[in-house]
C-alpha cells in the first residue's frame, strides 16, 4: 500500500539532464515554475509544452513511464476543472443543469488552471527523475547556505532529507512485516467502510511508530559514534562541480522566462 509513493523517484541515466549539476537544475526548475506562472495565453502554454517535450526527449526518460507517473495528478486536475466549470461565473452560458450553469469564463479559467497544474508537475518530475536524491539534497544544502545567516538550518534540512530517503525502503519492508504479523493475529484491513478501515490501521501504525522511534535513537547514537557533529567542518566525498554547461542551462532558462514575460504570450 506504500508502493504508490513515488516522491523522490529517480531513474539513473547518462543523458545531458542527468549530468547537469543539481544546483543548476534546481535554479532552472525555479525559473521554469516562474515561466508557468507568467504565461497568459494558450499559445504560451503550447510554446512551453514544446520546450518541455524537447527536454523530455533530451532526458531520455521513457515517455510511457513518465506519463503514467502523472496519473494521480490527473485526478486533482480534473477536480479543479469541474469546480471551475460550475463555480466561476461570467461570460455566456454554455450548459444548464437545473440550477447549475457552466459559463464560458469558467471553462476558460478552469482549463487554464488545469494546464498550469499539469505543467508544474511535469517540470518538477523532470528534475526528480533525472537527479539522484543525494545530489538533490546536496544541491539544496548549497543553495540554502546563504539562509543560514537568518537562522535556516540548511545542513540539518538536507541531512533530514537524506535520512528520510534512506529509511523509506526500510520502513516499507517493516510495515509489510507488521501487516503480515497482524493479519496472522486475525486483523482485518480490507472490509468495512472508510472509517472502519481507517480504524483498522491503528494496529499497524502503533508498532510502526514505536519502531521508528527506536530506530531514530539507534541511528543518532551510531552517527555520534562516527563523529557526526552537524555541518560544521564537514567535507564531502563528492564535491559539486559547476561546468560552463551548467551556467549555460541556467542562462537559457532565465532567457526563456524573460522572453515569455516580455512578449506576454
Amino acid at each position: 500500500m506504500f508502493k504508490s509513493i513515488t516522491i523522490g523517484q529517480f531513474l539513473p541515466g547518462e543523458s545531458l539532464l542527468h549530468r547537469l549539476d543539481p544546483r543548476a537544475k534546481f535554479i532552472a526548475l525555479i525559473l521554469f515554475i516562474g515561466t508557468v506562472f507568467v504565461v497568459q495565453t494558450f499559445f504560451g502554454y503550447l510554446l512551453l509544452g514544446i520546450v518541455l517535450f524537447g527536454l523530455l526527449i533530451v532526458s531520455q526518460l521513457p515517455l510511457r513511464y513518465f506519463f503514467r507517473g502523472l496519473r494521480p495528478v490527473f485526478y486533482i486536475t480534473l477536480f479543479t476543472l469541474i469546480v471551475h466549470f460550475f463555480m466561476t461565473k461570467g461570460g455566456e452560458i454554455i450548459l444548464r443543469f437545473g440550477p447549475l450553469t457552466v459559463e464560458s469564463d469558467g471553462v476558460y479559467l478552469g482549463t487554464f488552471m488545469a494546464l498550469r497544474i499539469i505543467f508544474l508537475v511535469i517540470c518538477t518530475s523532470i528534475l526528480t527523475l533525472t537527479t539522484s536524491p543525494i545530489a538533490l539534497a546536496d544541491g539544496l544544502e548549497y543553495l540554502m547556505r546563504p539562509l543560514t545567516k537568518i537562522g535556516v538550518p540548511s545542513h540539518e534540512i538536507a541531512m533530514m532529507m537524506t535520512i528520510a530517503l534512506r529509511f523509506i525502503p526500510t520502513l516499507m519492508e517493516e510495515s509489510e512485516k507488521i501487516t503480515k504479523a497482524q493479519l496472522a493475529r486475525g486483523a482485518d484491513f480490507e472490509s468495512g467502510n472508510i472509517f472502519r478501515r481507517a480504524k483498522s490501521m491503528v494496529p499497524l501504525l502503533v508498532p510502526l511508530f514505536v519502531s521508528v522511534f527506536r530506530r531514530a535513537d539507534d541511528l543518532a547514537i551510531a552517527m555520534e559514534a562516527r563523529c557526526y557533529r552537524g555541518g560544521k567542518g564537514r567535507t564531502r566525498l563528492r564535491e559539486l562541480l559547476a561546468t560552463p554547461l551548467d551556467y549555460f542551462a541556467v542562462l537559457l532558462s532565465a532567457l526563456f522566462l524573460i522572453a515569455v514575460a516580455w512578449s506576454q504570450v
Partner: protein
Amino acid sequence: MAIISATGLGYQYEGYGEVWALKDINLSINEGEFVAVLGPNGSGKSTLAKQINALLTPTEGEMLLDGLSTADPLNHWRIRQRAGMVFQNPDNQIVATTVEEDVAFGPENLGFPAAEIRKRVDGALSLVGMSAYKLHASHLLSGGQKQRVAIAGVIAMRPLCLVLDEPTALLDPRGRREVMEIISRLNRMEAITVIHITHFMEEALAASRVLVLDQGRIVLDGNPRQVFQQHCELRALGLDVPAVAELVLELRAAGQDLPPDVMTVDELVAKLCS
C-alpha cells in the same frame, strides 16, 4: 602499551536508582589484543562498550583511551575517531543510500579533503571485500554485507581499536561467518585492537582473551582455554561453554584420557586419534 585502561570504573544510569550498571572495573587492554566480552543479558557488556568510545562517561573512576580521558568532553571526538564502534542492528547504523556514501560518512565528519576520503573509502571497502558493491543501494544488501559495510565505515576513520557490540546477533550463520572472518583478519593483518561483545561462545574462541561480565563486574578474565575450563562458573551465570569443550567434559567424566583445554573439533580429532 595499554590502549584501553579503566581504573575503578563505575557507572549508574540516570533514573535507575542505586543500581550500578558497571562497578569496580579495572581493565587494561593492550594494542593488538582481540578481546571477547561475554555475559548474560543486563550484565553491562554494552555499557562497557559505550564507555570505551565516550558515548557514556564514568560516574566514578576513570576510563582512558590511548591516554585520553573520556571524562573530558573536549576529548570525545578524538576518542571516537580512535575507537570505532559497530552496533547490533545493521539497518539502524547505515546513514546513506549507497554503500560508498555510507562508508564516507565518518571521514566526511572528520573534515578530510575529497581525494583523501576517496582513498580511505576505497581502501576500507577492499579490506572488507565489498569493493564490487561500491555503488549499490545499501538497503538491498544482506545482513552480513550490511555489517561489513558498517565495519568499513569505521575502518575508513583509521581507528586504533574496533568495538563491536554484538554485531553478529541478528545475522544468519553465513553472515556471522563473513563478519567473524573480517574481524579476525583486521586484527591479524592491520593490528587493530578488537573488543568483540558476543553471545556466541564459538566466536569467543577466536579471541586472544575472554572477559566475562556479571552484574556490572568482571568475573572471569583470561585466555579462552582458561575461561572455558570454568564450566561451573559459566553455567551459574547461565552461559554455555563451546560445544567441543562440553563434549570433552563429558568424555573426561566417562573416563576418557583427555587434557581439559581442548576447544576445537580439529584438536579433539587429533587427540582422540593419536
